[in-house]
C-alpha cells in the first residue's frame, strides 16, 4: 500500500502503464461493482442450478441433446454446465470490455491521455481485466456445478473438465472484443443494461439455451450466422467427442475479427477527437 511501491513500475513508451498497481486497482473496482458481479458470477451459477441439476440429467448421455449418433463423454448436466459457463463468461467479458463506455462518459479516458499511458496499453488493460472477470465466472460455474455432484464425465475423461473450461475462457475473448466495440460505440453509464438484452438474444439465436436441432429449419440456418453459434459448438465439442465442423472455427474467428475491427476503428476515431 505504500506510495513508493508505485514508483517501482517504470513503464516505457509503447506498453507503458501495464503494471501490477493498475491491474490490482482495476480488479478491486470490479469486486466493488455489485451489478457486474451479479451479472457475471451469480446469474450463470443460478441458471445452471435451475436448469442443469435435474436428477434425471445425471444418467442421460449428452449426445441426446444435439441428436448425435455416437455417445458423448459426459452427461446432459455436464453439457448444460458448459453452456452456462459460456453464457457467464460471455456476459463477464462483455461487461469488462464495456467498462470503456463508462470511463469515456466520466472523462477518465481523456484524463489518462495527459499521462504517459498509451491508448494501446489502455485497451490491453481493459481486455486483461475483462478476461480476469471471465475467468472468475468460469471458475464459479464449474466449482458450484461440480459441488452439486450432478454433472459427470465418463471414466477416463475427467480431464475434459479442464479442457472445456479452457475452451470457454479463451472463447470469451470474442465477447471481450464485443464489449470494447459497444463501449466505444455508446458512451453511456448504462450500457450493460442494453448489453444484457443483446447477450440473451444472441445466446438464444446461437442455440446456447435450447437444442438447435429441434428448432425450425429457418432458425437453424439463421443461427449459423450469429456470434454465439460457433463458440457454442466449439466449447461442447470436446465432451461430445463427435464430428468437428471447421465452419464453427470460421464463425468464431470471423465474429472476433468483426468486433476487433469495429473496436479499433472507433478507438482510433475516439483518440483523434478527444
Amino acid at each position: 500500500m505504500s506510495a513508493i511501491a508505485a514508483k517501482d513500475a517504470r513503464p516505457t513508451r509503447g506498453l507503458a502503464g501495464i503494471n501490477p498497481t493498475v491491474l490490482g486497482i482495476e480488479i478491486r473496482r470490479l469486486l466493488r461493482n455489485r451489478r457486474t458481479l451479479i451479472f457475471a458470477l451469480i446469474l450463470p451459477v443460478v441458471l445452471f442450478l435451475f436448469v442443469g441439476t435435474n436428477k434425471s440429467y445425471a444418467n442421460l448421455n449428452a449426445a441426446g441433446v444435439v441428436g448425435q449418433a455416437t455417445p458423448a463423454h459426459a452427461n446432459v448436466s455436464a453439457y448444460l454446465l458448459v453452456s452456462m459457463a459460456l453464457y457467464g463468461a460471455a456476459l463477464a467479458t462483455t461487461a469488462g470490455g464495456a467498462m470503456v463506455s463508462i470511463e469515456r462518459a466520466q472523462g477518465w479516458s481523456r484524463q489518462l491521455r495527459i499521462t504517459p499511458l498509451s491508448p494501446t496499453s489502455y485497451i490491453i488493460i481493459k481486455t486483461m481485466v475483462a478476461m480476469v472477470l471471465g475467468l472468475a465466472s468460469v471458475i464459479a460455474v464449474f466449482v458450484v456445478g461440480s459441488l452439486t455432484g450432478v454433472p459427470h464425465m465418463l471414466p477416463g475423461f475427467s480431464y475434459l473438465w479442464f479442457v472445456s473450461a479452457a475452451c470457454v475462457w479463451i472463447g470469451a475473448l470474442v465477447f471481450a472484443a464485443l464489449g470494447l466495440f459497444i463501449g466505444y460505440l455508446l458512451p453511456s453509464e448504462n450500457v450493460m443494461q442494453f448489453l444484457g438484452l443483446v447477450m440473451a438474444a444472441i445466446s438464444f439465436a446461437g442455440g446456447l439455451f435450447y437444442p438447435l436441432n429441434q428448432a425450425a429449419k429457418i432458425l437453424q440456418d439463421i443461427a449459423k450466422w450469429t456470434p454465439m453459434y460457433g463458440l457454442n459448438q466449439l466449447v461442447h465439442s470436446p465432451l461430445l467427442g463427435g464430428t468437428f465442423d471447421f465452419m464453427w472455427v470460421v464463425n468464431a474467428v470471423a465474429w472476433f475479427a468483426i468486433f476487433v475491427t469495429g473496436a479499433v476503428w472507433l478507438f482510433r476515431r475516439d483518440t483523434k477527437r478527444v
Partner: protein
Amino acid sequence: MRIEKELQPAGGPPAIDLRDLHKNFKQVQAVRGMTLSIASGEIVALLGPNGAGKTTTIDMVLGLSQPSSGSVSVYGIQPRQAIDSGRVSAVLQTGGLLKDLTVEETCRYTASLFPTARPVDEVLQRAGISGIADRRVGKCSGGEQQRLRFAMALLPDPELLILDEPTTGMDVEGRRGFWAAIRQDAERGRTVLFATHYLEEADAYADRIILLRHGVVVADGTSAEVKALAAGRTVRATLHGADEAELRIIPGAESVEIRGETVLIHANDGDSVARYLLNSTSARDLEITARALEDAFVALTSDSVGPGGDPRTPADIPAEGQPAVTSQAGGSR
C-alpha cells in the same frame, strides 16, 4: 519590461511557444493565428469569455488535439513528449475521475503510469486532501474533486502546470482555498498557465494576463497594463440634437453612443472631452466615470463595442494578431 523575465534561466527554451497557431472545427475557426511565448517561472492567466479559444489552445498545448496549422512546443519539444516525461501536467475541466475509486487509489493509479512520481501521501497533503484519502471519488464535493485533480497533476512534479478553468462551480471559500494551494505551490518556481473567465482570478493570481477573443490574442501584459489599455473614462452628458460625426472627432474620444438626449463618449482622455462638451456644445448634467478591469475585459472582448457595429472599429481594440501590449517574455532566446 517585466520582472518575471529575470527569473527565466538564460538560454533555456520557453515553457510554451506557440507560432501562428490555428485550429478549425469544420466551419468554426476556434483559434486564428496565435503566437505567444511563456517563459519559465511565469504565472499566466488565459482570460476570455466562453468561446474565445482558451480550452482549444490548452488542448493543443497538452497534445490532446492537433493544430490545423502552426506549431506548438513545450520546453522545446512536442507536447506528447513533454507529457510522457512528466514535464507538463494539467488540471482539466470537470470530469476525468472515476467515481468508484477512492481518492488514494486514483492517485496511486495515476502515479504508477509515470516513470517517476512524487509519493502519493505527499501530493495529497500538498493538495490538502490527506484527510479524505479513503473516500470514494463519487462522494467528494466539487471542490474536493478539484483538489484531487490538482494532486494528480502534482504527481509527476511538473515544471509546467496547466489549469483549465479550475474553479468553475466552486463556492467562494473553495476557490480561495484552491488558489491558496496553487499559489503556495507556485512559490517553488513552477510555471503556471491557467484559463479563466473570472477577471478577479486573473487579476489576483497571475503575473501576466493574456486576453483572448475569437481565437486571437487581443491583449497581453501585466494586469496593470491590461487595465491601462481600457483605462479611459466614460463621459456621459445630456445633449440636445447631438451630431455623432461631430462628437467622434473630439480629441481623446474613442467611441460615441447616442441614446436619445443622452450621449455616452468613451475616451482615453476624459478631461478634454468634458472640456470640449462644456465649452463648445450645449451639453449639461455631465458625468465622468472610470473603467475597471471588468470594463477592459468587456471592451476588449465584447462583440458590440461602440455604434459602428464592427467589433474592431474602436481604437482600443487592436487589429487581429497584434496584441495591444506585447510582453517580451521569452525574448531572451
